[in-house]
C-alpha cells in the first residue's frame, strides 16, 4: 500500500506543479489545490499507514494510528480552503479589472519597466 500512497502523492505533486506553471490563473489555482492534496496526504502519511486503527479510543482495542498528523492535517485542509478562496477572489478581481487572466505581467516581461503601462484589454463586453 505504501507504494500506492507514495506514487499517488508523486502524481498529484507532478500534476499540480505542471498546472502551476501554466500561464493563466485558473489552472494555477487548480494546480495549487492539487499540490495541497499532495501535501496534506504527505503530512498525514508521515504518521505511517495503518488499516482499521482509527484513533478513537475503544475498550479492548490496543492499536491506534498516530493521531497528531491527523489533527494537523485537519486544520490544514480547512486553511487550504481559506487560501484557495482568497486566491480565487484575487484571480477573479484581476480578470475583471485587467480584462485578461494572464499570470505574468506582459509589460514587465517585454522589458519596458519604466515605459507607460500599455492599455490592457477592456473586458469581454
Amino acid at each position, binding site marked *: 500500500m*505504501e*507504494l500506492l*500512497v*507514495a506514487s*499517488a502523492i*508523486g*502524481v*498529484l505533486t*507532478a*500534476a499540480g*506543479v*505542471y*498546472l502551476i*506553471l*501554466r500561464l493563466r*490563473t*485558473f*489552472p494555477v489555482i*487548480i494546480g495549487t*489545490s*492539487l499540490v495541497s492534496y*499532495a501535501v496534506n496526504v*504527505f503530512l*498525514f*502519511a508521515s*504518521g*505511517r*499507514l495503518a*488499516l482499521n486503527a*482509527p*484513533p*478513537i*479510543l*475503544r475498550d479492548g482495542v490496543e492499536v491506534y494510528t*498516530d*493521531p*497528531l498528523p*491527523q*489533527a494537523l*492535517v*485537519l*486544520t490544514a*485542509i*480547512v*486553511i487550504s*480552503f*481559506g*487560501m*484557495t*478562496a*482568497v486566491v480565487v*477572489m484575487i*484571480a*477573479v478581481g484581476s480578470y*475583471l*479589472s485587467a480584462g485578461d487572466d494572464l499570470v*505574468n505581467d506582459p509589460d514587465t516581461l517585454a*522589458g519596458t519597466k519604466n515605459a507607460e503601462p500599455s492599455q490592457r484589454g477592456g473586458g*469581454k*463586453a
Partner: protein
Amino acid sequence: MSLFLIIALPFLGALLPGLMYQAGRQSCFLVTFLVTACAAIGLATHAPAVLAGEVVTASLTWLPQLGLNVNLFLDPLGFMFAGLILGIGMLIILYARFYLSRDDNMGAFFTYLLLFQGAMVGIVLSDNILMLLIFWELTSLSSFLLIGFWKHLPEGRQGARMALTVTGMGGLAMIGGMLLLGQIVGSYDLTVILENRDLIQASPLYIPALILILLGCFTKSAQFPFHFWLPHAMAAPTPVSAYLHSATMVKAGLFLMARMWPVLSGTEIWIVLVCSAGLITMVLGALIAIFKNDLKALLAFSTVSHLGLITFLLGTGTSFGAMAAVFHILNHASFKAALFMSAGIVDHAVHTRDMTRLGGLRRLMPITFAIATLAALSMAGIPLLNGFLSKEMMLEEALRTTLFGSPYLVAAVATLGALFSAAYSFRFIAHTFFGKVRNDYPAKPHDPEFGLWISPALLIIPVIVIGVAPFLAEPFVRTVTQAVIGSAAEMPSEHIKLWHGFVPALGMSAIAVVGGLILLAAWNPLARLWAATPRPEAKDIFDRIIAGAVGLASLVSERLHNGSFTRYAAIFVTAVVAIGAHAWFTGTDGAPTREMLPITPVGFAGWLMLMIATGFLVTVHRNRLAVLILMGIIGLMVSVGFNYFSAPDLALTQISVEVVTIVLLLLALNFMPNSTPKESTVLHRSRDIVVSVVAGLAAAGLIYSILMSNFPIASIADYHLANSYKGGGGTNVVNVILVDFRGFDTFGEIIVLGIAALVIYALTEALLSGPVRARLLNRGYEEKRAGDAHPMMMVVLTRVLMPVVLLVGVYIFLRGHNEPGGGFVAGLIVAIAVVMQYMASGFAWADNRQRYPYHGIIGAGVLCAGVTGIGAWFAGAPFLSSAFGYFRIPPMEKFELATAMGFDLGVFLAVVGAVMLSLESFSRLGRRAGIEESEHAMDIDPSRDEPKTETET
C-alpha cells in the same frame, strides 16, 4: 528605580508625544521632558551606590539555552554615559521646543528622539552583548529617522541614508565580532567577558574579533576612513546634531571601546590600529574644519577630530590615557553641545550659517557671543576652561607614546592636531562674532528668547567650573576610569591639575595656541590655497560605491526577476528539489525498517481512479468545467483514502471542504472564461513537464522512504492516546488534540480563516467600488441562459433538505468529542446547507432570510473560543485548559459536558462564518452583474431565453 524601568521609560514615553500632539506643542514638549526627567531621576537614585563603587544589576532570564538573558548593569562608566544621554537629552528637548518651527511635526520629532534616547541608554546599561547589539542597531535606525527628519530636503535624506549605510554596515561587522567574542569566552555576559582578558588575547580568534568590533566602533564614532558620514548628517535639525554628535550616537563607539578596554586593549595590534586611526582622524578632521564656511560643518569636522583624539587616548592602552579619554568625553560633551546649540541660535536669528556672510555679531547677539566664545575657547584648549585640562593630558600622553618605533612622531602629530583645533576654534569666534557689523545679513540678528539660550548657558557652567576647579571633577573621573580599566591596569598616580609646572605638554599647548592664532591671521591666502588643492570628495566615492552595488544587485535581480511569475515558480520548485536532493545524498538513510502493507483490491481500485482522474485533469485542463468535475473525483478519492487509512475525521473534513471548494470554483468560473487557450510553446511545455515530473518523483521518493522506515525517535502519539480520555475527557483523540492539547494552534487557525474571509470581503468591496462595477453590469453572456434559473425540483429539494442537513450538522458537532466529527466538520456541513439555498433559490432570496451578518458570526466564533480559553484562568489554570464532567438528566442517558465544547462551538461558528462570507462575496459580485432576482425564486422569466448580448446591441 529599576534599571529596566530606566530603559523602558523612553521607549514607552515615545508613544506620548504622538498622542499629545493634538494638545499642542507645549504639552508635547512637556511629556517628552517629563519622561526624560523621570528616567534621569531614576538614574540619580543609583548615584550614591554607583559612586561608592558598587555595581547595580537587574536581570531577567529569557532563553538561557541560547545565552539570551536580559541582564542589565550600572557601573560608573555606564552611569557617566547614561547621565550624559539623559542630562543633555533634557537640555536638547528644551532647546528643540523653541528651535522647531510651527511647520515641523513636533510629535514625530520627540517620538524619534525618545526612541533614540532609549536605545542609547540600552547600550550603556546592557550586560548581555547580544542585547547591546540590538540597542546598537536601534540607535542606527532611530538616528536615521532623526537625521532625515526634514524629509523635504534632499541633503537630509541623503545624509540619513549615508549615516544608516555606514553605521549599519559597521553594526553588522560588530555582530560578527561580538559573536566571536562570545564564542571565545563561552558566555555573552559582558561582566563574564571582561574577566577573561588572558583567554581572549591568547585566542586565535582575537584578531578577527578585534577587527570586526573596531569596525563597528569606528563607523559609529566616525573614525577615518569612515568619518565622512558625520558631516553629511548635519542636514538634520540642529537639536539633533547637538544631541547625536556631542553626547550620544558618535560616543557609542567610544563607549564600546572603553567598555571593552580591559580585554581588548594593550596588544600591539590594538595600539597600532586604534592609535593610528585616532591620530589620523584627529589631524584630518581638524584640518578640514579650518576651511569649512558652514558653522555646523566646521563643528561637524571638529567633532570628528575630537572623536579621533579620544580614540587615540583609548588606543594607547595605558591607564593614564584611559583617564584622559574619560575626562575628555565629559568635557567634549559639554562644550560641543553648547557650540552646536549656539550655531543653531545664529542660524535661527540670522537665517544663515555661512561664515562668509556672518561677522560682527558680537554686539548684536551678546548672550550668544558669550556662550559660544567660552565654549569655543574651551575647545581650543585655553586655560581656566575644561578643554584645556583634558587636552593637556592628551599631549602628555602623546609624549609618552611610541608608535612605529619613533618616540616623537605621536607628540608631533598630536601637537599639530591641537594647533589645527585651536585654529578652527578661533576662526569660529572671529568670523562669526568679530569683524565689522554688516548691513546685508539675511535677517536682523538678535539674541534669542530665553528658552533657546538657557540650555547652552547651563552647559557652560561645567565648562568653567571644571576648568577653574578641576579637583571637583577628579573623584568622579577617577571612579569612572577605575570602571574602564577594571583589573587590567593600575590606576594612574597623576592628578588632574591646572598647573603642573613648566612641563613639555605646556609648551606644546602654547605652540598650538600661538600656531592657531597665526593660522587665523593667514586664513585668507591659506583658504585660496586650500580651494586650489585637489582633494578626494568622500561623498562622490561613497555614491560611486553605492551605485556600483545597486548596479550589481539589479543585474542579478533582473536576470532572475524578469516579471514572469511562472519562471519564479519553476526556479523555486527546482531549487527546493535540488536542496532536498543534496540533503538526501549527503544524509544517512538506512534500509527500510517496516514491512509494506499488502495491496488490497479496494485500495488498488481507489488508487487507479485517482490516477486516471489526475491524468485526465492534466490532459483536458483547458476545459475548465471538466477540470472541476475531475477535481471532485480526486477530492472524493483522497477522502476515501483518508477513511481507508484510519482517519475518519480527515475523511469527513475533506469531503465537506471538497463540496464547498467546488461550489466556490463554480461561482468563480461564472466570471471567468470557460477555457484556457493554448499559449505556451512546445519547448516551454517540455521544460514544465521535466520540472513537474522531477518534483513529483522527489515527493514520492521522500514519502516512500519515510513510510518504509520507523520513527527515528519515539512519537509523541502515545502521550496523546494515553491522556486523551483521562485528561481531555474524549475518546476521539484527533478532536481532543484540536480542542485541548493543541487548542492554541486551533485558536490561531480559526483566526486565520476568519481573516482570509474578511480579506475576500474587502477585495469584493474594493472591486465593486471601482470601474469593475460598470463592467459587471454591462457584461454579456457567452451562452444561452436557462429559462428557469431556479429549477423547481432543486428549490423544493434543498428546502426540504435544509433542516435535515442542519440536524446532521448538530449531530456531528455533538458527537465530535468522542466519535468522528467536531466543530470543523459541523461548520462545513452547516455552511453547505446554507449554500444550497443560495444556489437553488437565488442570492436575493437567501440574503433576505439571512438574519446575522457573517462577519458577526466569525467574530462570535473567535470570541466564544477565546472566552472559553480565558475561563480557564478563573479556575487557576493556564489559557485553554479544559474541564469536563458527566451529568444525567432523567430520562436521558448519562452524558458528558466539557468546556472544550465551548471552544469547539467557537470553531464551528468561525468556520460557518468564514465559509459563508467567502461564498457570499462571490454572490454579491453576481448580483451586481445584473443577474435578475425575484422574490419568488421559482418565477420564470421568459426574457431570459435570449442571450443578453443580443438584446443590448
